[in-house]
Structure formats: structure tokens, C-alpha cells
């Protein structure tokens, strides 16, 4: 019989977050690839997962998808553990780790037919739709063996979308794409997020993560060195300000004397300093009291790239307390 069969009730909790990892460890003999990683990806997040090569990102994603067994700890997807519940835990979850792989001797459509058959639940009816989304319909009859890297990445996205996922796990989806392909990939991820899909995005493209993600985890040498909102990270990284006034020399003198204002200095375009928001408010009042007019006050947040290198090459921001979802 070549049909489908109904499974028993899914056991996912209605309140469970899309991804929740606790104390995740993966050890290969003497090498500690993942060191007590905690992750919390909330519903609707576009969650960036960052780290240098060999930091343990892909290993963590493999554990999340049930491909490798954690040495310690566990991952839950919508409250279900892939190691204990197998394919049932992947209900509503799709994606790929490292490069998406397909059968090179089959056409793209045949590959998707195969995967749709392994998905069941009407996935086969979505094949044409997902081929259209990734613009591979004209090449769908061609063998995947002849596809470029970028086409395979797009086919990987199509294969993931076949499952109509609620959680999409993407490992370096823009790797190997040309600038137009990277732009298209960003647009697609944004659209998917806009449609309510939670996205866990592992990427080396820091501007891409900064543009797409609202929450991030940064891993280094297998450990999470930051997890939380990207905006918070940038604030913790030290907010800088640029200011022009009617009397920059006097303003600089006042700023240096003001509590909470750090690294104040002058320049050709006014003065610059670092401070928390409420200290900036105090400074503006002090300037007003000294009859100094403010012509421009521009916050200058640290870029994700600055923060990434600070965190992964030392001199980092202290690890934030992990929020329990």
C-alpha cells in the first residue's frame, strides 16, 4: 500500500517556543564543539545565529534538527525533542544545514516530488508554487547535477517551503550567491518572516543579519557569548553621540565635567562622546542652562560587525542573562 497513515497526536505544547535549547553540549573525543549552549527563539523572531568558522553553529543546528545526538542537554522544537520523538518533532519545521543537498541524477521537480512524498500531508500540491517562488520553474526538468551553486541554494529554499513551515532553519543561505542573489534571498527571508514564519538564520553576512534579525545569538568556541535583542546588544556595545552646538569648545568643557559622559572629544564636526540616554538628557539641560544651543545631536550605535569582532576576538560585552521563554 503506497498511501499515507495518520500519526498519533502531536505532543507539542501550545505555549512552547519554536526553538529552545538547554545546556547543549557536543563533544568529539577531546574537542568540545558545543559548550552548554542555551537558545530561545520566540514565535515570529528572525533570529540570527552568528559566530566565526568552527564556533559550533552548524553542529548546534544539526542537533536542533535531530541529525546528531547531543552529548548533554536537549533541544526542543515547539516543545518536542527530535532525539526522542524523531520526525514528529520536525512537524512544522524545515530548512537545511550547510549546503542543501539533492540527488544529482534527478531533475529539480523529481527531487521535490521525492521530498514531498516524504513530507506527506499534501506537500506534492505545493511543488509548482515553490518552484515559482524561487524562480526555478523553467529549469525544473533539468537534472540538479547541472545546477549552479546559487540554483541549488534556491532549490533548498523551495524544498523547505514545501513543508509550509512555521519554523525555518537556514544555515548560510546566501553563501555562494552573487549580489543579486543575496539581495533576492534577503527579500525572500523578509517576506517569509512577514508571513509569520519564525526564521533561525545562521550567517556570516553580518550586514544581512543586522538588516534582517531582531534577536541574535553569538557563539565563539562553542559557547554563547551573547543572546538577546540585537538593539540591546548595540546599546550595550556603547552608544556614541555626535553633537554640533553654537559653541563647541564650551560644550566640550561642559560635557567633560558632566557625570556619565565618557570619552568626550572635539573634532571638525563638533564634539563626540559616549553616554547612556538619560545622561545625554542631563547634558542637553546643562547646555541649555549655559545658553549653548544644540544644532544637531546624532546617536551613533556600534555596528553588528564591530560588536561581533569585539565579542569573538576578546574585549567583549559581558554575556547577557539568558531569558527563559
Amino acid at each position, binding site marked *: 500500500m*503506497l498511501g499515507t497513515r495518520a500519526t498519533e497526536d502531536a505532543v507539542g505544547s501550545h505555549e512552547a517556543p519554536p526553538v529552545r535549547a538547554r545546556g547543549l553540549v557536543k563533544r568529539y573525543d577531546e574537542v568540545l564543539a558545543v559548550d552548554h549552549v542555551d537558545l530561545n527563539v520566540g514565535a515570529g523572531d528572525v533570529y540570527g545565529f552568528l559566530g566565526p568558522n568552527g564556533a559550533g553553529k552548524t553542529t548546534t543546528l544539526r542537533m536542533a534538527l535531530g541529525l546528531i545526538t547531543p552529548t548533554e542537554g536537549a533541544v526542543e522544537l515547539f516543545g518536542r525533542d527530535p532525539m526522542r520523538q524523531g520526525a514528529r518533532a520536525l512537524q512544522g519545521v*524545515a530548512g537545511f544545514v550547510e549546503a542543501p543537498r539533492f540527488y544529482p541524477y534527478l531533475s529539480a521537480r523529481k527531487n521535490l516530488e521525492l521530498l514531498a512524498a516524504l513530507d506527506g500531508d499534501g506537500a506534492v500540491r505545493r511543488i509548482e508554487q515553490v518552484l515559482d517562488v524561487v524562480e526555478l520553474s523553467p529549469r525544473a526538468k533539468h537534472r540538479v547535477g547541472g545546477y549552479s551553486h546559487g540554483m541549488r541554494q*534556491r532549490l533548498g529554499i523551495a*524544498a523547505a517551503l514545501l513543508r*509550509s513551515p*512555521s519554523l525555518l532553519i537556514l544555515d548560510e543561505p546566501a553563501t555562494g550567491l552573487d549580489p543579486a542573489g543575496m539581495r533576492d534571498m534577503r527579500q525572500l527571508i523578509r517576506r517569509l518572516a512577514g508571513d509569520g514564519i519564525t526564521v533561525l538564520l545562521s550567517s556570516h553576512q553580518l550586514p544581512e543579519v543586522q538588516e534582517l534579525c531582531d534577536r541574535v545569538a553569538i557563539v565563539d568556541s562553542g559557547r554563547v557569548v551573547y543572546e538577546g535583542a540585537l538593539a540591546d546588544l548595540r546599546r550595550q556595545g556603547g552608544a556614541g553621540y555626535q553633537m554640533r552646538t553654537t559653541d563647541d569648545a564650551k560644550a566640550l568643557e561642559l560635557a567633560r565635567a558632566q557625570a556619565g559622559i565618557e570619552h568626550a572629544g572635539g573634532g571638525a564636526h563638533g564634539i563626540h562622546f559616549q553616554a547612556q540616554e538619560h545622561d545625554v538628557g542631563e547634558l542637553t539641560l546643562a547646555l541649555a542652562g549655559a545658553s549653548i544651543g544644540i544644532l544637531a545631536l546624532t546617536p551613533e550605535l556600534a555596528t553588528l560587525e564591530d560588536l561581533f569582532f569585539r565579542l569573538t576576538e576578546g574585549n567583549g560585552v559581558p554575556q547577557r542573562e539568558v531569558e527563559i521563554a
Partner: protein
Amino acid sequence: MSSAAISPPAPARRARVRRPSTATVYRWELRKLISQKRTYLGLALVVILPLFFVVFQNVHQRHDRGGDNIFAAQITQSGLATPVLMLLFLSVFMLPLAASLVAGDIVAAEDGNGTLKTILTRSVNRGQVFAAKTMAAMTYAAVAVFSSAAVATVAGIASWGFHSVRSFSGTVVSAPEALLLVFASNAIYLIPLLAVAAFGVLLSTATRNSAAAVVGTVGLVILLFIVAQIPGLEGIRPYLLTEQFENWHGLLRTPTDWTPIAHSAWVCALYLVPALFAGYLIFLRRDVAGG
């Protein structure tokens, strides 16, 4: 990327979903096999050899082939002697080789190409994938055996006619009954061949290397043949897998000798069941990090 509409996300927490059956996974394993050129290499080996044999016999027009084997002696008297003789020749090495080519490759190739992770992140469990791959490897072994037998039978009958033959006991067996016995002999021979395939699947799963698994499986067959020849080890010969390759001879005796067939069935089970169980456990617990 296109702005084509995307299906809304599936509810990840809905109560019931329909997941594919193992039969669906098995059907796709067969389709993958059919789509690969290398699948046909083993089949070509076991199909071409009977054809070559019949052509060679016709060219040389040798009507009196004595020798030790009763079917060799009557090769030109009945086309039905050809499939029996070919099974005798091919059962020793060529059919085990053909079975090993696919069984040794069926898990390891996917691991090496990275497609194992692709299918294991869909809605099928590892047990289903392992079962489907094992069944596909065994189906291939069966197709190899019966393709070879069919070609040998058709070529033999086309060359030397559909006549009665004499069995190993010297009894004359009518042509229709002999045809049935040819089919049954191949079916019985399949029992040890399935054990070879099971060992191939085990090595394919354990080594993650197609070449190592194929060579290892063929190596096991050769090793057991060597062990069978070592003086002083006669006591274990009846329990060697390679000794079971002759289990079907009992069918071609009058009356039918079921003893070697029954013995072969349980001896082969001793090889097949542990190999599959070990392969299953390895497949369930292994880390899929290839590709």
C-alpha cells in the same frame, strides 16, 4: 526570487497530521535506484553472461558435454538445462557481487552525498528509511536473480527447445514442471543472497563508504569460501553462508530433498537477522554529519 504567493505556514501544533508510510519511502528508494546508471551495472553482468554462454555454445555446436554435472551434459537437449547451469555458475560469485554493488552503496552513497540529511529532516523516521533501503537492496537482489534466470531460460529455450530434463537424481522431469522448478530454485537461492545483501547494508551503514562496503561484502563471501577449504574446519562448513548457495539443489532431486533447504533457511537467518538488527541500531543512533 519571485513574488509568487507562499502558502501560509502550517500549524506546527495541530493535533493530527498524515505522515508517509514506509511503503512510500520504499517506492522512492526503488525510483532512485532506477534513475542511477550504476544500478544497471550489476544487472548487466548477470544478464549478459547467460546470453554470452548460449551464443558461445551455439557457435561451437558442442552436443556432447560430459563432465560432472548432469545439466551440463544435457545442455543442448533442453533449453531448460541452461538456467540451471547458469544458476550453478553465477550463484557462487556473480550474483553475490551484483547484490553487494547495491546493498553496499545504498546508505553510504547518501551519506557521502549529504542527501541522507535531506531525507532525515522530512516527515519520515530513521527506522522507516532504514527499512525502505533494506527492502530496496533486497528487491534489487531478487531482480538480479530472476532477470538472469529469465534471460537464461528464454535464450536456452530459443536455442535448444522446451523439452524435459533429467534431475540430479536422474529422473526425467517434464518441461512445464522443470520450468516451475527453475523458478523455485532461483527463489530458494535468494535466501542466502538476501543474507549477503543484509551484510552489505550493515557495512554500508557502519562504514559510510560505498567502496569499503561493497569490497567488504564481496570479501566476506571470498573469506567464507576460503574457510570452507581449510582442512580441519569441516565441522563448521554446514554453517557457512557460502555453503548455503547450493541449498536449491534439493529441489532438483526426486523426491524433493527439503533438508538442505530448511537447514539453509535457519542458517541464513543467523546471518541476516543480526546483520540487519546491528545495521538498524547503528542507523538509529548515528550522527549524520556527512555532506
